Protein backbone atom coordinates (compact mmCIF):
# COMPACT_ATOMS: atom_id res chain seq x y z
CA UNK A 1 0.00 0.00 0.00
CA UNK A 2 2.86 2.40 0.83
CA UNK A 3 4.42 1.93 -2.62
CA UNK A 4 1.04 2.48 -4.23
CA UNK A 5 0.51 5.68 -2.22
CA UNK A 6 4.00 6.85 -3.19
CA UNK A 7 3.34 6.18 -6.87
CA UNK A 8 -0.01 7.98 -6.92
CA UNK A 9 1.40 10.93 -4.95
CA UNK A 10 4.37 11.17 -7.33
CA UNK A 11 2.01 11.06 -10.30
CA UNK A 12 -0.11 13.89 -8.87
CA UNK A 13 2.97 16.02 -8.19
CA UNK A 14 4.32 15.33 -11.70
CA UNK A 15 0.99 16.27 -13.26
CA UNK A 16 0.98 19.73 -11.65
CA UNK A 17 -2.83 19.93 -11.74
CA UNK A 18 -2.67 20.26 -7.94
CA UNK A 19 -1.14 23.71 -8.41
CA UNK A 20 -4.47 25.37 -9.25
CA UNK A 21 -6.26 24.53 -5.97
CA UNK A 22 -3.04 25.07 -4.01
CA UNK A 23 -2.48 28.56 -5.43
CA UNK A 24 -6.12 29.52 -4.88
CA UNK A 25 -5.81 28.26 -1.30
CA UNK A 26 -2.61 30.20 -0.63
CA UNK A 27 -3.92 33.34 -2.34
CA UNK A 28 -7.18 33.43 -0.39
CA UNK A 29 -5.33 32.60 2.85
CA UNK A 30 -3.12 35.60 2.18
CA UNK A 31 -6.17 37.81 1.72
CA UNK A 32 -7.97 36.41 4.79
CA UNK A 33 -5.06 37.11 7.11
CA UNK A 34 -3.70 40.30 5.56
CA UNK A 35 -5.40 42.28 8.36
CA UNK A 36 -6.64 41.55 11.89
CA UNK A 37 -8.77 38.41 11.42
CA UNK A 38 -10.32 38.54 14.90
CA UNK A 39 -10.25 36.25 17.91
CA UNK A 40 -8.19 33.03 17.50
CA UNK A 41 -10.96 30.48 16.86
CA UNK A 42 -13.15 32.98 15.03
CA UNK A 43 -10.25 33.73 12.69
CA UNK A 44 -10.00 30.02 11.91
CA UNK A 45 -13.61 29.87 10.62
CA UNK A 46 -12.74 31.65 7.35
CA UNK A 47 -9.82 29.38 6.50
CA UNK A 48 -11.79 26.27 7.55
CA UNK A 49 -14.64 27.31 5.22
CA UNK A 50 -12.06 27.82 2.45
CA UNK A 51 -10.38 24.45 2.99
CA UNK A 52 -13.59 22.50 2.36
CA UNK A 53 -13.92 23.28 -1.38
CA UNK A 54 -10.15 23.31 -1.86
CA UNK A 55 -9.88 19.80 -0.40
CA UNK A 56 -12.75 18.64 -2.63
CA UNK A 57 -10.96 20.12 -5.67
CA UNK A 58 -7.67 18.50 -4.69
CA UNK A 59 -9.41 15.14 -4.19
CA UNK A 60 -10.81 15.34 -7.73
CA UNK A 61 -7.30 16.12 -9.01
CA UNK A 62 -5.89 13.09 -7.17
CA UNK A 63 -8.70 10.78 -8.30
CA UNK A 64 -8.33 11.75 -11.96
CA UNK A 65 -4.55 12.17 -12.12
CA UNK A 66 -4.13 8.87 -13.95
CA UNK A 67 -6.12 8.55 -17.16
CA UNK A 68 -8.50 5.60 -17.47
CA UNK A 69 -6.08 3.31 -19.32
CA UNK A 70 -3.15 3.87 -16.96
CA UNK A 71 -5.51 3.36 -14.02
CA UNK A 72 -6.40 -0.04 -15.52
CA UNK A 73 -2.71 -1.01 -15.49
CA UNK A 74 -2.33 0.21 -11.91
CA UNK A 75 -5.41 -1.77 -10.83
CA UNK A 76 -3.97 -4.95 -12.34
CA UNK A 77 -0.49 -4.29 -10.90
CA UNK A 78 -1.84 -3.55 -7.42
CA UNK A 79 -4.09 -6.59 -7.49
CA UNK A 80 -7.45 -4.85 -7.33
CA UNK A 81 -9.43 -1.64 -7.60
CA UNK A 82 -10.07 -1.40 -3.86
CA UNK A 83 -6.33 -1.13 -3.16
CA UNK A 84 -5.91 1.64 -5.73
CA UNK A 85 -8.93 3.64 -4.61
CA UNK A 86 -7.90 3.30 -0.97
CA UNK A 87 -4.41 4.53 -1.85
CA UNK A 88 -5.88 7.44 -3.85
CA UNK A 89 -8.05 8.35 -0.85
CA UNK A 90 -4.98 8.27 1.41
CA UNK A 91 -3.09 10.56 -0.99
CA UNK A 92 -6.02 13.00 -1.15
CA UNK A 93 -6.39 13.00 2.64
CA UNK A 94 -2.63 13.50 3.09
CA UNK A 95 -2.59 16.51 0.73
CA UNK A 96 -5.66 17.95 2.47
CA UNK A 97 -4.15 17.45 5.93
CA UNK A 98 -0.97 19.25 4.88
CA UNK A 99 -3.12 22.19 3.79
CA UNK A 100 -5.04 21.94 7.10
CA UNK A 101 -1.72 22.22 8.95
CA UNK A 102 -0.72 25.25 6.88
CA UNK A 103 -4.12 26.84 7.53
CA UNK A 104 -3.80 26.22 11.28
CA UNK A 105 -0.27 27.60 11.52
CA UNK A 106 -0.79 30.65 9.24
CA UNK A 107 -2.84 32.83 11.66
CA UNK A 108 -0.60 31.84 14.58
CA UNK A 109 2.17 33.63 12.68
CA UNK A 110 0.21 36.50 11.11
CA UNK A 111 -2.80 37.23 13.36
CA UNK A 112 -2.05 39.89 16.02
CA UNK A 113 -4.09 37.96 18.60
CA UNK A 114 -1.98 35.47 20.60
CA UNK A 115 -2.81 31.77 20.23
CA UNK A 116 -2.60 29.22 23.04
CA UNK A 117 -1.44 25.71 22.14
CA UNK A 118 -4.94 24.45 22.91
CA UNK A 119 -6.50 26.93 20.47
CA UNK A 120 -4.01 25.87 17.83
CA UNK A 121 -4.94 22.21 18.34
CA UNK A 122 -8.66 23.00 18.13
CA UNK A 123 -8.03 24.96 14.94
CA UNK A 124 -5.93 22.15 13.49
CA UNK A 125 -8.62 19.62 14.32
CA UNK A 126 -11.37 21.80 12.83
CA UNK A 127 -9.38 22.28 9.63
CA UNK A 128 -8.65 18.57 9.43
CA UNK A 129 -12.38 17.85 9.74
CA UNK A 130 -13.24 20.35 6.97
CA UNK A 131 -10.49 18.83 4.82
CA UNK A 132 -11.90 15.32 5.35
CA UNK A 133 -15.40 16.49 4.45
CA UNK A 134 -14.06 18.12 1.30
CA UNK A 135 -12.08 15.03 0.30
CA UNK A 136 -15.17 12.91 0.88
CA UNK A 137 -17.29 15.11 -1.39
CA UNK A 138 -14.56 15.23 -4.06
CA UNK A 139 -14.03 11.46 -4.15
CA UNK A 140 -17.74 10.73 -4.03
CA UNK A 141 -18.28 12.37 -7.40
CA UNK A 142 -14.93 11.76 -9.11
CA UNK A 143 -13.93 8.83 -11.32
CA UNK A 144 -14.82 5.96 -11.10
CA UNK A 145 -18.15 7.04 -9.55
CA UNK A 146 -18.70 9.65 -12.28
CA UNK A 147 -16.81 8.94 -15.52
CA UNK A 148 -17.11 12.42 -17.00
CA UNK A 149 -15.02 15.26 -15.54
CA UNK A 150 -17.81 17.68 -16.52
CA UNK A 151 -20.34 15.85 -14.37
CA UNK A 152 -17.78 15.58 -11.57
CA UNK A 153 -17.13 19.33 -11.54
CA UNK A 154 -20.84 20.13 -11.70
CA UNK A 155 -21.72 17.73 -8.88
CA UNK A 156 -18.88 18.80 -6.57
CA UNK A 157 -19.54 22.48 -7.24
CA UNK A 158 -23.27 22.04 -6.56
CA UNK A 159 -22.73 20.17 -3.30
CA UNK A 160 -20.09 22.63 -2.09
CA UNK A 161 -22.23 25.67 -2.96
CA UNK A 162 -25.31 24.13 -1.33
CA UNK A 163 -23.42 23.23 1.85
CA UNK A 164 -22.87 26.83 3.02
CA UNK A 165 -26.50 28.10 3.06
CA UNK A 166 -27.61 24.91 4.83
CA UNK A 167 -25.61 26.10 7.82
CA UNK A 168 -25.90 23.92 10.90
CA UNK A 169 -27.81 21.28 8.95
CA UNK A 170 -24.46 19.99 7.67
CA UNK A 171 -21.32 18.73 9.47
CA UNK A 172 -19.39 21.64 7.93
CA UNK A 173 -21.88 24.00 9.52
CA UNK A 174 -21.27 22.44 12.95
CA UNK A 175 -17.56 23.16 12.63
CA UNK A 176 -17.93 26.69 11.27
CA UNK A 177 -20.59 27.52 13.87
CA UNK A 178 -18.36 26.38 16.73
CA UNK A 179 -15.38 28.37 15.41
CA UNK A 180 -17.55 31.44 14.65
CA UNK A 181 -18.74 31.50 18.23
CA UNK A 182 -15.16 31.15 19.46
CA UNK A 183 -15.96 27.94 21.30
CA UNK A 184 -14.99 24.27 21.29
CA UNK A 185 -17.81 21.85 20.56
CA UNK A 186 -18.20 18.08 20.56
CA UNK A 187 -20.02 18.45 17.26
CA UNK A 188 -16.63 19.07 15.61
CA UNK A 189 -15.63 15.56 16.65
CA UNK A 190 -18.84 14.15 15.18
CA UNK A 191 -18.23 16.07 11.98
CA UNK A 192 -14.81 14.40 11.85
CA UNK A 193 -16.40 10.97 12.20
CA UNK A 194 -18.77 11.84 9.36
CA UNK A 195 -15.83 13.06 7.28
CA UNK A 196 -13.99 9.75 7.74
CA UNK A 197 -17.21 7.86 6.96
CA UNK A 198 -17.73 9.96 3.82
CA UNK A 199 -14.21 9.22 2.54
CA UNK A 200 -14.61 5.50 3.30
CA UNK A 201 -18.03 5.49 1.66
CA UNK A 202 -16.61 7.16 -1.46
CA UNK A 203 -13.99 4.38 -1.74
CA UNK A 204 -16.63 1.66 -1.35
CA UNK A 205 -18.95 3.31 -3.90
CA UNK A 206 -16.01 3.69 -6.29
CA UNK A 207 -15.08 0.01 -6.00
CA UNK A 208 -18.69 -1.09 -6.57
CA UNK A 209 -19.24 1.36 -9.43
CA UNK A 210 -16.09 0.36 -11.31
Amino acid sequence: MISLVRYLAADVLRGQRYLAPLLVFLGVMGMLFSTDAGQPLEAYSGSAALLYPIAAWTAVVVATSEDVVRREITVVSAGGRSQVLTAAALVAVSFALVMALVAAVWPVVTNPHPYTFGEFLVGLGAHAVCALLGVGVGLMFARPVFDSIGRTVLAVFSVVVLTYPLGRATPLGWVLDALGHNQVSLSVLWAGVIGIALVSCAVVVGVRRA
Partner: protein
Amino acid sequence: MLRDLTLEVSGLVVLTGANGTGKSTLLKIAAGVLKPTSGRVVRPASVGYVPERFPSDVKMSASSYLAHMGRIRGAAVGDVLERLGFVGSLTAPMSQLSKGNAQKVALAQAFLATGVLVLDEPWTGLDPAAAAELSSLLQGRTALVSDHEGHLAGATRVDLAGGHVTIELSRVVGLDALEALEGVRSVLSRGSSARVVVAPDRSDHVLAEALRLGCSVRSVR
Protein backbone atom coordinates in the same frame (compact mmCIF):
# COMPACT_ATOMS: atom_id res chain seq x y z
CA MET B 1 -21.27 -8.88 -24.77
CA LEU B 2 -19.67 -12.34 -24.79
CA ARG B 3 -21.65 -15.44 -23.95
CA ASP B 4 -21.11 -19.13 -23.31
CA LEU B 5 -17.34 -18.88 -23.22
CA THR B 6 -15.01 -21.16 -21.32
CA LEU B 7 -11.31 -20.47 -21.71
CA GLU B 8 -8.45 -22.11 -19.86
CA VAL B 9 -5.17 -20.34 -20.43
CA SER B 10 -2.17 -22.61 -20.38
CA GLY B 11 0.93 -21.63 -22.32
CA LEU B 12 0.31 -19.12 -25.08
CA VAL B 13 -3.27 -18.50 -26.12
CA VAL B 14 -3.99 -16.09 -28.95
CA LEU B 15 -7.39 -14.44 -29.34
CA THR B 16 -8.45 -13.61 -32.85
CA GLY B 17 -11.63 -12.21 -34.31
CA ALA B 18 -12.97 -9.25 -36.22
CA ASN B 19 -13.22 -5.80 -34.68
CA GLY B 20 -16.01 -5.60 -32.16
CA THR B 21 -16.11 -9.30 -31.34
CA GLY B 22 -15.08 -8.66 -27.74
CA LYS B 23 -11.37 -9.44 -27.63
CA SER B 24 -10.41 -6.38 -25.60
CA THR B 25 -13.40 -6.83 -23.31
CA LEU B 26 -12.46 -10.45 -22.67
CA LEU B 27 -8.85 -9.44 -21.97
CA LYS B 28 -10.00 -6.77 -19.50
CA ILE B 29 -12.14 -9.34 -17.73
CA ALA B 30 -9.25 -11.81 -17.68
CA ALA B 31 -6.89 -9.18 -16.26
CA GLY B 32 -9.35 -8.07 -13.59
CA VAL B 33 -10.06 -4.61 -15.01
CA LEU B 34 -13.72 -5.44 -15.68
CA LYS B 35 -16.06 -7.73 -13.79
CA PRO B 36 -17.98 -10.30 -15.82
CA THR B 37 -21.75 -9.83 -15.62
CA SER B 38 -21.97 -13.55 -14.96
CA GLY B 39 -19.57 -16.46 -14.69
CA ARG B 40 -16.23 -16.43 -12.95
CA VAL B 41 -12.57 -15.84 -13.59
CA VAL B 42 -9.82 -17.68 -11.74
CA ARG B 43 -6.48 -15.97 -12.09
CA PRO B 44 -3.11 -16.02 -10.31
CA ALA B 45 -2.20 -13.23 -7.88
CA SER B 46 0.31 -11.68 -10.24
CA VAL B 47 -1.09 -10.64 -13.61
CA GLY B 48 0.67 -8.44 -16.16
CA TYR B 49 -1.54 -6.35 -18.41
CA VAL B 50 -0.91 -4.27 -21.51
CA PRO B 51 -3.93 -2.33 -22.79
CA GLU B 52 -4.69 -1.78 -26.45
CA ARG B 53 -3.41 1.79 -26.37
CA PHE B 54 -0.89 2.97 -23.79
CA PRO B 55 -1.57 6.64 -22.96
CA SER B 56 0.65 9.16 -24.68
CA ASP B 57 0.43 12.07 -22.21
CA VAL B 58 2.17 10.61 -19.14
CA LYS B 59 4.33 13.17 -17.34
CA MET B 60 6.30 10.60 -15.35
CA SER B 61 9.56 9.29 -16.80
CA ALA B 62 9.88 5.70 -17.97
CA SER B 63 12.48 4.83 -15.32
CA SER B 64 10.39 6.37 -12.55
CA TYR B 65 7.23 4.64 -13.78
CA LEU B 66 8.88 1.23 -13.98
CA ALA B 67 10.54 1.69 -10.57
CA HIS B 68 7.14 2.52 -9.03
CA MET B 69 5.48 -0.44 -10.76
CA GLY B 70 8.30 -2.69 -9.56
CA ARG B 71 7.85 -1.52 -5.96
CA ILE B 72 4.08 -2.01 -6.17
CA ARG B 73 4.62 -5.58 -7.34
CA GLY B 74 7.64 -6.18 -5.12
CA ALA B 75 9.64 -7.12 -8.21
CA ALA B 76 12.95 -5.94 -9.63
CA VAL B 77 12.85 -4.17 -12.99
CA GLY B 78 14.37 -6.60 -15.46
CA ASP B 79 16.03 -6.16 -18.83
CA VAL B 80 12.88 -6.28 -20.96
CA LEU B 81 13.29 -2.68 -22.10
CA GLU B 82 16.84 -3.32 -23.27
CA ARG B 83 15.88 -6.56 -24.99
CA LEU B 84 13.09 -4.78 -26.85
CA GLY B 85 15.59 -2.19 -28.04
CA PHE B 86 14.31 0.86 -26.17
CA VAL B 87 16.23 3.87 -27.48
CA GLY B 88 14.47 6.89 -25.94
CA SER B 89 15.36 8.80 -22.81
CA LEU B 90 14.52 6.92 -19.63
CA THR B 91 14.44 10.12 -17.60
CA ALA B 92 12.32 12.29 -19.92
CA PRO B 93 8.53 12.39 -19.50
CA MET B 94 6.93 9.44 -21.26
CA SER B 95 4.81 11.91 -23.23
CA GLN B 96 7.97 12.64 -25.23
CA LEU B 97 8.48 8.99 -26.22
CA SER B 98 7.60 7.62 -29.63
CA LYS B 99 4.61 5.29 -29.84
CA GLY B 100 6.89 2.26 -30.16
CA ASN B 101 9.05 3.17 -27.18
CA ALA B 102 5.99 3.93 -25.02
CA GLN B 103 4.68 0.48 -25.98
CA LYS B 104 7.99 -1.03 -24.84
CA VAL B 105 7.56 0.65 -21.44
CA ALA B 106 4.03 -0.75 -21.24
CA LEU B 107 5.38 -4.21 -22.03
CA ALA B 108 8.23 -3.86 -19.51
CA GLN B 109 5.78 -3.10 -16.70
CA ALA B 110 3.66 -6.12 -17.67
CA PHE B 111 6.68 -8.43 -17.63
CA LEU B 112 7.23 -7.49 -13.97
CA ALA B 113 4.39 -9.92 -13.25
CA THR B 114 5.38 -13.46 -12.43
CA GLY B 115 2.00 -14.97 -13.34
CA VAL B 116 -0.10 -14.81 -16.45
CA LEU B 117 0.31 -12.03 -19.02
CA VAL B 118 -2.75 -10.45 -20.59
CA LEU B 119 -1.70 -8.47 -23.65
CA ASP B 120 -4.02 -6.57 -25.98
CA GLU B 121 -2.35 -6.30 -29.40
CA PRO B 122 1.11 -5.96 -27.81
CA TRP B 123 2.95 -5.70 -31.14
CA THR B 124 1.30 -2.38 -31.94
CA GLY B 125 3.94 0.23 -32.80
CA LEU B 126 6.92 -2.13 -32.44
CA ASP B 127 9.58 -2.33 -35.12
CA PRO B 128 10.25 -5.79 -36.64
CA ALA B 129 13.23 -6.50 -34.37
CA ALA B 130 11.31 -5.59 -31.22
CA ALA B 131 8.28 -7.54 -32.43
CA ALA B 132 10.42 -10.63 -32.93
CA GLU B 133 12.03 -10.15 -29.52
CA LEU B 134 8.61 -9.85 -27.89
CA SER B 135 7.55 -13.13 -29.49
CA SER B 136 10.75 -14.64 -28.11
CA LEU B 137 10.12 -13.18 -24.62
CA LEU B 138 6.66 -14.74 -24.58
CA GLN B 139 7.98 -18.26 -25.17
CA GLY B 140 7.67 -20.26 -21.97
CA ARG B 141 5.24 -17.81 -20.40
CA THR B 142 1.55 -18.23 -19.78
CA ALA B 143 -0.17 -15.50 -21.73
CA LEU B 144 -3.51 -14.53 -23.23
CA VAL B 145 -2.81 -12.32 -26.22
CA SER B 146 -4.90 -10.69 -28.92
CA ASP B 147 -3.18 -10.76 -32.26
CA HIS B 148 -4.36 -9.95 -35.76
CA GLU B 149 -1.10 -10.64 -37.54
CA GLY B 150 -0.02 -14.13 -36.55
CA HIS B 151 3.09 -13.22 -34.57
CA LEU B 152 2.91 -16.29 -32.36
CA ALA B 153 3.27 -19.41 -34.45
CA GLY B 154 2.39 -22.56 -32.58
CA ALA B 155 0.22 -20.84 -29.97
CA THR B 156 -3.28 -22.06 -29.23
CA ARG B 157 -5.67 -19.88 -31.23
CA VAL B 158 -9.18 -19.00 -30.14
CA ASP B 159 -11.37 -17.26 -32.70
CA LEU B 160 -14.01 -15.36 -30.77
CA ALA B 161 -16.25 -15.02 -33.79
CA GLY B 162 -15.14 -18.05 -35.73
CA GLY B 163 -17.83 -18.82 -38.25
CA HIS B 164 -20.05 -15.83 -37.65
CA VAL B 165 -22.48 -13.48 -39.30
CA THR B 166 -22.17 -9.75 -38.68
CA ILE B 167 -25.39 -7.77 -38.82
CA GLU B 168 -25.03 -3.98 -39.01
CA LEU B 169 -28.12 -2.22 -37.71
CA SER B 170 -29.22 1.39 -37.80
CA ARG B 171 -32.17 2.92 -35.95
CA VAL B 172 -31.68 0.29 -33.24
CA VAL B 173 -34.72 -0.53 -31.15
CA GLY B 174 -34.84 -3.08 -28.34
CA LEU B 175 -31.11 -3.72 -28.02
CA ASP B 176 -31.61 -5.55 -24.72
CA ALA B 177 -33.99 -7.99 -26.38
CA LEU B 178 -31.49 -8.59 -29.18
CA GLU B 179 -28.63 -9.17 -26.74
CA ALA B 180 -30.66 -11.82 -24.96
CA LEU B 181 -31.30 -13.86 -28.11
CA GLU B 182 -29.70 -17.25 -28.43
CA GLY B 183 -26.71 -17.25 -30.79
CA VAL B 184 -25.79 -13.59 -30.25
CA ARG B 185 -22.06 -13.53 -29.52
CA SER B 186 -21.39 -9.84 -29.19
CA VAL B 187 -23.13 -6.51 -29.54
CA LEU B 188 -21.25 -3.28 -30.16
CA SER B 189 -23.56 -0.29 -29.80
CA ARG B 190 -22.68 3.20 -31.13
CA GLY B 191 -25.39 5.77 -30.70
CA SER B 192 -28.38 4.67 -32.75
CA SER B 193 -26.48 1.99 -34.68
CA ALA B 194 -25.10 -1.38 -33.59
CA ARG B 195 -23.02 -4.28 -34.84
CA VAL B 196 -24.34 -7.68 -33.81
CA VAL B 197 -22.16 -10.79 -34.25
CA VAL B 198 -24.24 -13.95 -34.44
CA ALA B 199 -23.63 -17.68 -34.80
CA PRO B 200 -24.40 -18.66 -38.42
CA ASP B 201 -27.17 -21.10 -37.52
CA ARG B 202 -29.05 -18.39 -35.57
CA SER B 203 -28.52 -15.45 -37.91
CA ASP B 204 -31.88 -15.80 -39.69
CA HIS B 205 -33.71 -15.85 -36.39
CA VAL B 206 -31.80 -12.82 -35.02
CA LEU B 207 -32.30 -10.91 -38.27
CA ALA B 208 -36.04 -11.61 -38.22
CA GLU B 209 -36.25 -10.52 -34.62
CA ALA B 210 -34.34 -7.30 -35.32
CA LEU B 211 -36.74 -6.46 -38.15
CA ARG B 212 -39.73 -7.36 -35.99
CA LEU B 213 -38.45 -4.96 -33.29
CA GLY B 214 -38.30 -2.18 -35.87
CA CYS B 215 -34.53 -1.96 -36.47
CA SER B 216 -33.21 -1.02 -39.90
CA VAL B 217 -30.70 -3.52 -41.30
CA ARG B 218 -27.78 -1.84 -43.02
CA SER B 219 -25.82 -4.96 -43.99
CA VAL B 220 -25.43 -8.67 -43.32
CA ARG B 221 -22.14 -10.40 -44.05
